[in-house]
Structures are given as structure tokens and as C-alpha cells.
């Protein structure tokens, strides 16, 4: 049977810079082999399309949509090791394994993301200090390589491909199946919430939480200035012995794209003010379903439509501990000075480097915030990028839509080793994406 390709327009979650591509959507493993052999143009795998930028699109070429390769294959309750196909989502992991007493070891901000995407972006959650990133829990994966062969890749077998694929944004091939360890856990967390007055207090709270909290996250009012700069809400959480499984929260759809004037400094500022005032001034504990803590935005289906047709950018950097405080202050000053309608920014600590050559984490502090695509947005994004790089940090590829090739090279010291691995396994560059072309990955080596 021949492969059926669908002409599609694809963009990332930020809905910026959509491009046209042919998309195949295999429903069986045998069809995936034919997808690669059916074309001589380049190919990139796409999961749920939750990366914000251009990682999972491939203009004028081909895309393999992996969402229908979503079968659970084997689970060992003694070790917690799960084998599954790459299109399995975090939603499925929660539904199938919370009743058995297991949870994903690391969870990104949306349950709709796939585990294949989580591997490709080496995603982190609110527990990075404690549990590292997704790649830290991967035992092996089956990779469809450029030569059409599928190889089982692990730290012991094809270790160069292992290091290049974890965090490698799909550029080494297509992950068909993977094995990773789930962690013992329950369907509820006990959350301690506390209002934070300014950035000093935030860093002090993180420093105290780092050693003993399983989960920690800070929400910053990115529009606050002056003495209020860096104010926000700080949460730490531990698994709670809950009696029952968390019910799936109903999603509220966003039925249409909001017009550009709906989100202004005024309306978003009012929301941020409300969010801050709602949090208790003194530390207070409450029990919350895992979903609500991990994926607060999943309750709003298609929330990216809040930003309208022009879309938005998400900036996310990590900066080493030593320079983190000063750099975060400068970045927040830049955001509040620009007056862009940014909702709550997210501040988290990361514990150390990942296992991939292009893994995002390093020991430091990560700041993430939305910037609507309005006049001045790209200038602000460039300024934030400059501040992060100047402080010895880097930009997260799962969010990136704009960074300069030089910033990638400066932020990711193992990029050259990554490119050498690509040259070895995929000299014809069968795997490519809009992101790899924009960042000129593989073009520096002569």
C-alpha cells in the first residue's frame, strides 16, 4: 500500500510562522517504514504539536505525525519500567497508571504532549532538582535512522545516538518506541501556597525548597515594577496519599481567536493582580488533583487562541545559579518596561545538566513567559535572549521560534559534537525541520 500524504499548514503552539508540508500519519509501525522510503525529501516527526516554535514543522518537505502510534506495550510493576510507542500522551500515562500507583517521572506543562516529544525536547517539570528531566528516566528507544534501519539505542548501545537524540529535537531520526521508568506516586498532591513580595523573597524561598521539596514552582507577575518587581506566588508540593483517583477536569474550549485588543497591559495586569491577591500571605496547604497541579492550563482547551491570530512567543531561558538573580531581575525589568501583555511568568530551579548533547537543563534558574506577537515583541524577545546569553544561559528549543544561530552555538557547548553525530548517521540530512534550518544546525561543519 502506498503512503497517503495530506497537504497541511503547520505551526507550533505559538501559531507563528506556519509553513506548508506534506503530512503522513501512520497508524501501524509497518507504515512508518514506508513513510521514510516513500520520499527523498526531508522528514521530521511531529507529536501533539505542543512545542511553541518551529521544531515540529518542515516547510516544503515532509512531516510524520506520530499521534496514532500510541500503544502501551509492556509494564513491569516491580521496576516501574514502561515500554510504549512514541505517540502516547501524558494524559494516557495518568489514566492508565495512577490507578496502579505510578506517575510519569517528569511532566511538561501539558498532558496532551507525547512521550516522543518529551524525549526529543528532554522536557523538565516542577521536580527537576529532585528527578531531573525526561531523558534521565529513559532506558532505551527504537530509532528509525536515515538509512531506513531501526536501531535499539541505549547508553550502552549506539551511545552517540542516545546522547544526540535525547533533547535532539527529532533531528537524528524517528523514535518509534521507548522504555522509561515511571515513579511511585498518587493522584493527588499536597500543595503549599504562599504569596511572595519581591524577587529577593522568591530566590530565598527557592533556595529553602530546593533541598527538600519534591515539586516547586513560582508564578511571577511580569508586569509589576519598582518595589513590586518579581512579586508572585510560590508553590511547593508533595505526593499525598489520596483515597481516589483524580477525576478528569472538564476542559473549557476557547471557541474563537480573541481580537488583538482583548489582551492589553490593563486587562492582563488586572488578572495578574487578582492572581497575586488570591494567594494567601502566609503559607497555606491544600490538596489538589495531580492534573490541576501539573497542567493548570489544560482546563482551557486551545488556550493559545487567547492570543489571537497573530500568535505569541514563549521565551524560556535557563541561567546558571551564580548569575541567576541579577539576570532574572534584568529580564523582568525589560518585560515590565516593554509593557507587553504578559500573563504570569514561571520561575523554576533546575538541578543539573541532562544526558543529551542539546539538553536544555543546567544547574540554575529558568524563567518562562508569554509575549504576544504585537509590535515590539521581537525586539523584546531579542533583548531577553541577549540577557540570558550574557549571563551564561541558554534558550529552550521546545519554546524557541526566534533565537539567532549564534545564540544557539553560544548557549549549547556540545552543539559541535551533536553535528558530528548527525554527519555520521545522517549525512544526507534526511531529517530536518524549520527549526534546524533557521538555526543552521549542521551547517557550520565544513
Amino acid at each position: 500500500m502506498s503512503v497517503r500524504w495530506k497537504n497541511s499548514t503547520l505551526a507550533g503552539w505559538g501559531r507563528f510562522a506556519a509553513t506548508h508540508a506534506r503530512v503522513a500519519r501512520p497508524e501501524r509501525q509497518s507504515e512508518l517504514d514506508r513513510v521514510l522510503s516513500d520520499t527523498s525529501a526531508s522528514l521530521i516527526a511531529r507529536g501533539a504539536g505542543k512545542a511553541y516554535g518551529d521544531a515540529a514543522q518542515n516547510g516544503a518537505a515532509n512531516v510524520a505525525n506520530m499521534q496514532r502510534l500510541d500503544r502501551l506495550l509492556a509494564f513491569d510493576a516491580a521496576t516501574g519500567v514502561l515500554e510504549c510507542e512514541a505517540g502516547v500522551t501524558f494524559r494516557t500515562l495518568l489514566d492508565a497508571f495512577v490507578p496502579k500507583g505510578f506517575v510519569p517521572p517528569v511532566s511538561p506543562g501539558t498532558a496532551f504532549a507525547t512521550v516522543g516529544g518529551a524525549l526529543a525536547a528532554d522536557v523538565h517539570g516542577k521536580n527537576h532538582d529532585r528527578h531531573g528531566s525526561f531523558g534521565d528516566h529513559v532506558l532505551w528507544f527504537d530509532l528509525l535512522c536515515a538509512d531506513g534501519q531501526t536501531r535499539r539505542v541505549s547508553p550502552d548501545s549506539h551511545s552517540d545516538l542516545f546522547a544526540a537524540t535525547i533533547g535532539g529535537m527529532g533531528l537524528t531520526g524517528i523514535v518509534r518506541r521507548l522504555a522509561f521508568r515511571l515513579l511511585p506516586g498518587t493522584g493527588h498532591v499536597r500543595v503549599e501556597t504562599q504569596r511572595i513580595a519581591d524577587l529577593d523573597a522568591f530566590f530565598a524561598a527557592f533556595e529553602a525548597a530546593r533541598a527538600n521539596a519534591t515539586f516547586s514552582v513560582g508564578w511571577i507577575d511580569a508586569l509589576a515594577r519598582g518595589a513590586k518587581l518579581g512579586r508572585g506566588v510560590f508553590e511547593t508540593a508533595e505526593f499525598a496519599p489520596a483515597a481516589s483517583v483524580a477525576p478528569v477536569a472538564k476542559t473549557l474550549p476557547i471557541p474563537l481567536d480573541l481580537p488583538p485588543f482583548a489582551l492589553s497591559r490593563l486587562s492582563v495586569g488586572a488578572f495578574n493582580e487578582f492572581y497575586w491577591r488570591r494567594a494567601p500571605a502566609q503559607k497555606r496547604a491544600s490538596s489538589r488533583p495531580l492534573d490541576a497541579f501539573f497542567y493548570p492550563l489544560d482546563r482551557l482547551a486551545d488556550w493559545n487562541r487567547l492570543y489571537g491570530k497573530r500568535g505569541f512567543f514563549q521565551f524560556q531561558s535557563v541561567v546558571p545559579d551564580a548569575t541567576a538573580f541579577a539576570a532574572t531581575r534584568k529580564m523582568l525589568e525589560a518585560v515590565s518596561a516593554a509593557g507587553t501583555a504578559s500573563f504570569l511568568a514561571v520561575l523554576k530551579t533546575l538541578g543539573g545538566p541532562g544526558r543529551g548533547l542539546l539538553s536544555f537543563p543546567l544547574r540554575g534558574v529558568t524563567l518562562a513567559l508569554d509575549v504576544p506577537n504585537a509590535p515590539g515583541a521581537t525586539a523584546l524577545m531579542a533583548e531577553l535572549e541577549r540577557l540570558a546569553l550574557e549571563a551564561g544561559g541558554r534558550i529552550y528549543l521546545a519554546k524557541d521560534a526566534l533565537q539567532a544561530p549564534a545564540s544557539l552555538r553560544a548557549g549549547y557547548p556540545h552543539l559541535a559534537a551533536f553535528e558530528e553525530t548527525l554527519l555520521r548517521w545522517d549525512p544526507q540530512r534526511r531529517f530536518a525541520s524549520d527549526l534546524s534550518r533557521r538555526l543552521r544546525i549542521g551547517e557550520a561543519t565544513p
Partner: protein
Amino acid sequence: MKSAWLILGASSAIARAFARRVAASGADILLVARDGEDANTLAADFVLRGSPSCKAIGFDGDVAAAFRDFAQGAVPNVFLAFGSMPAQSEIDADPAALAQTLDVNFASPVALLHRLMPVLEAAPGGAIVALGSVAGDRGRLKNYVYGAAKAGLHAYLQGLRARGVRSGVQVVTVKPGFVDTAMTWGLPGMFLVAAPDAIAASCLAAVAKKRDTIYAPFFWWGIMTIIRHIPERIFKKLNI
């Protein structure tokens, strides 16, 4: 008493979604698919999603006997989901494609269901849920061999339903509109495309509510009511 489901054509997206739902409700599942490797993958998936016992077999053996043995001690049920929809032009060009379309969408399902009905009648209380198509409601220029096969299947299911009323077997005809499956992927002219899981949910609801025939999603009833009532002397000139 617990249920056992036979899933015919388990590799289809609607069958996958349907089987996951019955797996989560604790039913045993015997699945039949052409691609053996894929069938084993699906069996593993259904077990991890809650099915206490799940096995995969091919179409070549005696499916009815295998299901009779598998469903011992449970209420047997059947979900029939296989089919194929080649382009009309492909059928026009190749007599083998015509024969195959009639076989896959009509002759094979009927032969299988006819062998399975006694298994269900021996332990009454179960259901047969079979996927027909809105294409079977009226012969159309663009799709009339496939439509004719599905129309034949609909007529067979009507008779089977009458037999089942007397022997305690429910027969549900499901007529899906456009569904987001491998069958419709990349085809031009698709609109109001439904998710496979939405169709699966409608199928289960139809069983629970003892429905005879359903359109899925429901609004295809309205669309097809209009299509069925266009006078033939006009309809024959329409390019749909």
C-alpha cells in the same frame, strides 16, 4: 456477568478507540486483524488499559469457533469495523478492485456475522455492533460500489436484528459520516470530520440505549435525510 468482545478489524482507528473503552470497563477482548504484529501490539495496549484478558488472532482460522472458546463464561459481543474505500476511479479501472470492495465491505462481514450469530445466541444478552456507512444510504456518482456494498450490509443487519429480537441478541447498525481515520486521511472534500473516539462513544451509548440504527455523529441523520429525499431525476445529475 462479564463481557467478552470480539473486535473484527482491530487495526482501524474506530475499533482501536472502541476496544480501549471496553478494555477500561473490564471486558475480555479477542481481536482479529490482518497485520499480526500490529494485532499483538494492540492486545498489549488493551491489557494495560484494563482488559483482564486479551488475545489476537488472524482472519484465516475459524474465527467463530475461536471466539466461542474465548468467551466461555462471559456474554459474547461483536464489534465489526473492517472495510475499505478505494476511489471510484480505481474501481472503474480494475475489476479486481471492484470484487475486493464488494468482498471486504459486504461478503466477508456477512459471512463472518452469519457464523458468529449462533455463538451469541447460545449465551443471550450480547450485542453485535457493525459499522456501515452514510454512503450506503444512497448510491452516489463518486462512491457507488462502496455505497452499494454498505447498503447490502445494512439490509443484512436489518434481517439479523429481527432474528436477534427472537433470540436475545441486539444488533446495532452504525452509520458513521466522515471520521478522522486512515481511510479519510488526505482525501479532498472532507468536512465535519469526527474523532474516532467520539464514534466509539456513540457506539457504546447505542448499545446501552438499545438503539437499532444510529448515525455518528448524530447530525449525519439530518444531512442524510435531506440527501435521501432529493428526487432521483435531480439527484442523478448532481456531482456528489
